[in-house]
């Protein structure tokens, strides 16, 4: 199934008839598919409550040079989805592929192709900024001869040269964030996942982060960006999926979502879909 889909880049995501209200999301682009998620499901067994589905059969695809937004409230299943995509969690059903590698059977290749950044992926406090980049480049199997130039380039790009030799525990939160993003890029991954990256950041740092994401898109990378902040998604995302209770309620470009709902602001669009689903 998946190879056939990959052969037809124009194929829209297969839609469940029960979710017909969601607009199809054909993207007018020749850029290659980088991420494919099909029927991805994760359920947990809980004593006393039985099976709980955190993610319930979602489908989406992403292309190179695209920022794909996962928009949802806390507990909607964003993090679980991204954890499955990055092979930290094993899907109960469905598949997730990154650059054609299956997350379940070829986890290492998947992880090598992506950088994962979230508020919960912390840095080693007793390593210096430079060592942190070196470490993550190496464990992500970057060719050892390329590690040094890559680390130098990142230090240059993010302007962390001044404190490259200071321990991470001594850095301010803004500096730490730069190091954290740099380490996500340490092995030059074509796909990047940002899971609520601006949680707890001040305005200036948040804006700096958004700028980095835009640069990454310009470099032709795929960025999957999860957030519950509407303005960020409005500004960044080429396409947006509205996630609620483990299901995708709607997916498309901002304009497509506006057309489908007749609403202008993303916040209103979001509330519209969630209320419809609740009703």
């Amino acid at each position, binding site marked *: 199934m998946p190879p056939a889909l990959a052969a037809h880049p124009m194929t829209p995501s297969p839609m469940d008839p029960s979710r017909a209200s969601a607009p199809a999301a054909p993207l007018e682009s020749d850029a290659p598919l980088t991420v494919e998620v099909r029927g991805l499901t994760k359920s*947990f*067994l*809980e*004593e*006393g*409550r039985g099976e709980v589905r955190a993610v319930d059969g979602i489908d989406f695809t992403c292309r190179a040079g695209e920022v794909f937004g996962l928009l949802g409230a806390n507990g909607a299943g964003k993090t679980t989805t991204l*954890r499955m995509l*990055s*092979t*930290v*969690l*094993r899907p109960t059903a469905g598949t997730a592929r990154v650059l054609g590698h299956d997350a379940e059977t070829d*986890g*290492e*290749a998947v*992880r*090598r192709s*992506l950088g*994962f950044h*979230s508020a*919960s*992926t*912390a*840095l*080693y*406090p*007793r*390593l210096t900024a430079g*060592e942190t980049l070196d*470490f*993550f480049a*190496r*464990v*992500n*199997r970057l060719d*050892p001869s390329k590690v040094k130039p890559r680390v130098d380039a990142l230090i240059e790009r993010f302007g962390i040269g001044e404190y490259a030799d200071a*321990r991470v525990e001594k850095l301010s939160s803004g500096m730490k964030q730069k190091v954290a993003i740099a*380490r996500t890029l340490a*092995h030059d991954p074509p796909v990047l996942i940002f899971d609520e990256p601006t949680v707890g950041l001040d305005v200036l740092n948040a804006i700096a982060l958004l700028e980095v994401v835009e640069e990454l898109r310009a470099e032709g990378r795929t960025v999957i960006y999860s957030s519950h902040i509407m303005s960020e998604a409005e500004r960044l995302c080429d396409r947006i999926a509205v996630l609620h209770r483990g299901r995708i309620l709607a997916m498309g470009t901002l304009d497509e979502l506006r057309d489908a709902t007749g609403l202008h602001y993303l916040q209103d669009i979001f509330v519209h879909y969630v209320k419809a689903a609740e009703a």
Partner: protein
Amino acid sequence: MNTLGTLVRYELLQLVRDTRTILLAVVLPAVLLPGILVIGNLTTEADEERVRDTSIGVAFLGSDSGWARSLVERAGTVPDSLVGDPLSMTFHEGPAADSLIGADGLQLLVRAEGPDDRGLPSLEVRYRASSDLSRSAADRLSARLERVRVALRDSLYAAGGLPVDPAAVLPVRTTNVAAAGREAGALLGTFLLPLLVAMMLTGGSLVAADTLSGEKERGTLETLLTTAVSRNEVVAAKGLAIALVALVMTVLNVANLGVWVGFGLMEIPAALDVSLTPGGLGALFLLLLPVVALLSAVLLLVSGWAKTYREYQLWFAPVFLLMLLPSAAAALPGLELRSAVVLLPVANVALAMRDVLAGRGDLLFGALAFVVTSGAAVWASSAARSTLSTERMLADSAADRAEFLGGPALFPYRVLRWFGLMWVVLLGLSLAFGERLGIRGQVLVNLLGLFLGASVLMLRRYRLPVREALALRPVHPLVWPAVLVGAPSGFVVGIGLAEITGVFLPVPPQVLEAFGQFLLPEGMGLVQLVLLLAVLPGITEEIAFRGLLLHGLRRRLKPWALCLVVGGIFGLFHVSLFRILPTAYLGTMLALVTILTGSLFPAMLWHALNNAVALLPVAAGWVAPDMALPPWAWPLAALGLAASFWTLRRVGAGYPGVTRPEGGG
């Protein structure tokens, strides 16, 4: 390989940068502990010196104190070289009584009585054991008095015309064929491994405390798991780092001791002059490797199990003790490597190392010890790897949620605690009152008071649905004949298994006996016997163990582990060492019966039948207690047991929430 190197290198780098830990956990103890030892030794020496040098106050009592005094005076003149320790005495005049011993300079009371009806006078040295001085004085004085007695006897013999010294009659000379090095090796072998294990555990813990639990706490573990490294690499790298630091710390500790010895602040007993061949040294090193691997893997497992640094520390103390205990196996005299102990990880290496040190290495069993302990290390590593599953990390938060919800959801997380408490109560009761209660009282207190009482408490406390928690379900009619065949067959198979094991591995005879026998209470009628020792345990023990314990653990363990754990805990509740294995065997079978049928009733019948089969034939006088079973009984019983479990598997409904185990028996 490259990645592994990077992981280990950075792991060590981070440890070295943790100066505070290094300073307080490494440097401080290294300086303080030998100091404490030295001061402790000094005070002990001072005490010993005081005991030796103090003049002992002696008073006399009894009808013949003049005679006694002359003997004691003569004892004082026995040369120190003959008895070892010096003794100086001062004699107290005036009244003397036992109550005065140990105070006011009086340490001993010598009571002399005139000749008894056989014509033998007697001397009694009275002392107070709660005073070092008095006890040691009594030892020294009686040793000297014995010398005096022998000298007097010898002079009587000489006067009577015995041509030789009485001591020269049938003289005994011993020749020790052990070389000095071997003897020292045997001594060193008794404590070398526990010492090394303690050092390695504390050393390895420096890394382990911070490695998985600390990374989880700081959130760096998730970062690491989203990189291209595999979980196997993470476990290997961290295990390697723990092992490396454990080894380095051990070497440092030994060197530290060496420095203290070098400065003459601590003494090494002269008896520890071990000579080892290079081959022996190599063998010791090889034997140590699986232990290092196992310790590192276990520490990593604890670290992976714990969610935070402090939780790790909580688990560390019991794990430390648990690993230290088997390593001390060589200190137990009479424990041989060529026995069942070879199957016990760490303990087997302890014995193998002792044998090598004593110059009596056993290649085959040494290799077996190596393999067994290595196997344990592999198991611990794979268990450590499974703690990296994110599902488990999320399951932990399920435990927190259960705490919030309370009731039945909380019960699985509390059930082991309850049984731990019950075990302590049982142990206390049986040790404190066991004798006094008698078997009737014990049965009633344990079965009705403890097992049934605690079960009722658990049912109420967690608001458990009784029918479901105790698996009170009807079963297929074919289950009953299967149980009727299975219970006696299982009993006989148990005896057979124990004896077969005994052929390959020496098993203490008490264990063999325990499989076949019950302590037969005296003066109990048959009806009472059946009621108290078969029917009642069948009901109450099943309610507690195959009912609540199994219910509580059913989702937390795989079926085979569930059977073994329920059986093992059941075994531990039969406090006597030699009853543990047989009872665990029975408990495992009963758990399997319950899981297969999904009901507690068959297990109750099986249990009662088992006890009745074990008790009745002997109690009723149908057979002699030491009757041997005919050889055809065992295959027949094995067949019966297999048929029984096959039937249970075919017709049993299965225990809800537990996947059915593969295969039976």
